[in-house]
């Protein structure tokens, strides 16, 4: 019967096991060692995967939203991706780019209705999609993408 409900039960029990570690994480454009509080703020568990030319720090928050932060070898966060039933806190994950993102949203010309977003700004791209209680998105600094990493691979 309750596939929808069962899913969140499963995620939640996973959380209880993994919610103890407290490594550092930073917002977009920030230094990986500079924001000790972020992961604690999200009350999230963390999983770090190393790829060629970058590392992915995946945070899983209560409720099931996963935020993946892409970190360069120099320790800079150049991209953030998310998926799950709740939006991530944009101020937290966009850091100094938050004001630019918010201003662009407020200024956007559009017809009525809610549509996936493709915000291409100087020095910042934000894309969002999904539907209510099932969101996906990515934000990145185009100039900082490592060679060989395509934007659509940020997920």
């Amino acid at each position: 019967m309750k596939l929808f409900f069962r899913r969140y039960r499963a995620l939640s029990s996973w959380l209880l096991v993994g919610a103890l570690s407290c490594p550092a994480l930073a917002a977009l454009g920030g230094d990986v060692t500079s924001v000790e509080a972020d992961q604690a703020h999200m009350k999230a568990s963390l999983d770090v995967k190393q790829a060629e030319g970058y590392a992915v720090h995946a945070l899983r928050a209560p409720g099931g939203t996963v935020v993946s932060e892409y970190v360069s070898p120099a320790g800079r966060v150049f991209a953030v991706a998310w998926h799950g039933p709740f939006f991530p806190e944009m101020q937290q994950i966009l850091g100094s780019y938050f004001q630019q993102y918010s201003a662009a949203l407020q200024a956007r010309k559009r017809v009525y209705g809610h549509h996936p977003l493709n915000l291409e700004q100087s020095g910042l791209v934000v894309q969002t999609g999904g539907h209510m209680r099932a969101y996906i998105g990515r934000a990145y600094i185009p100039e900082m993408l490592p060679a060989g990493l395509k934007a659509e691979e940020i997920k």
Partner: protein
Amino acid sequence: MRKKFLALIVTGGLGFAVGCSSGGATPSGVPGGGSTTSNILSIAVDGGPFASQPGGIYPNGAFASVTICHPGSTTNCVTVDNLLVDTGSVGLRVLQSEVSSLGLPTVNASNGSAAYNCVSFVDGSFLWGPVQSATLTMAGEVASSVPIQVISSSTANIPTSCSNGGVNENTQTSLGANGILGVGLEPFDCGVACDTSSGSATPPSTSPAYYTCSSSGCTPAFASCGSECDDSSSVEQVTNPVVGFPLDNNGVIVELPSISGSAATLTGSLVFGIGTETNNQFSTSASVFTVACDFFNTTYPVGGQAFDIDPSSCTGPGSFIDSGSNAYFFYNVNNALAVCPSTSSAAAFYCPTSLTSLSATVEDPNTQFSETVNFSIDNAQTLFSSGDAAYSTLGGPVPAGDGFDWGLPFFYGRNVYVAIDGQAQPSGLANAPWWAF
């Protein structure tokens, strides 16, 4: 207001005052297999409240009216029109300005304080406001004491984790509607993830659905989804009004006529119940698509692009049917379709130079049953300049990794069934949730 409320029932009753046979269907709560209740709410794709103003048309928005009463009263009521019919969300969300005269009672969260609700749309826009209890009448159907979201007129005390940098759509002007009537696949707004029975020590903390507030601000809170979530508390979450009906409570059928290209306006029906009345029997020509985590699969032949959900892990860019999305939204594989200029009000849509015929295959992720769906995409700027409100050929791009969103154009010329999770369905049909068309 009272007059309007009665008129609704009477007119509805005339259209459906005959008895019904069950036709072999055995959903629960349908003793004798039928009733004399009117179960058909008329819907209109008419451009919404600002249709007559320049640039004011809400494209492909299907709107309906709901009579909202103080619980227990049949006279302290208002009928609110221009509510967007949304199979992609759950529960009624209505502007405070429309219901402020009713003095609706508050609904508490699990910690005993008044609950506040937040929802974000994909574009970062949001709705914020208290959860309140109301009795809702749609056609002849009555759902008593249903938790709804009342969208706050005030912008005070909105937590930043809710506003999140997005646009506050707390007015008719910003929302383009008086509210949203969410009649999707689930009984509750959030389900176990927001209930203490989730087993999580803390409620969802990033952009949460529920909060309670004090003089020092608002903090995330649990809200109960009741016995269906193994919670002994009464339901506190914003609830699909359909499950609150005594009868005809297992789903809805959205019925809209087909159009060629665009139409000035369209009218159709939101039918309550599946297989519970003579007028909502499951059509032999319809096919059921069960879902995984409320998604099904879509394969778009260009580039062999698949928008599939993995039933075992609930990962993948699953696809969905959503009357609250006003176009076909899908990934622009190989950038094959031109997108409208980014500075135009049509920036979210495709603008091909000519009408482009496409097809995709939709698939049940559990049974692998599939069907081909043909559709066409036209130039959104040209469509919008027509002054029409309904467009069968409106499409738009989604980011890579997102699913295939079968929006309102998909509903034109189809009867789309939405079978609600946990509700009994006619015998011979799969357990809900599912879509059928």
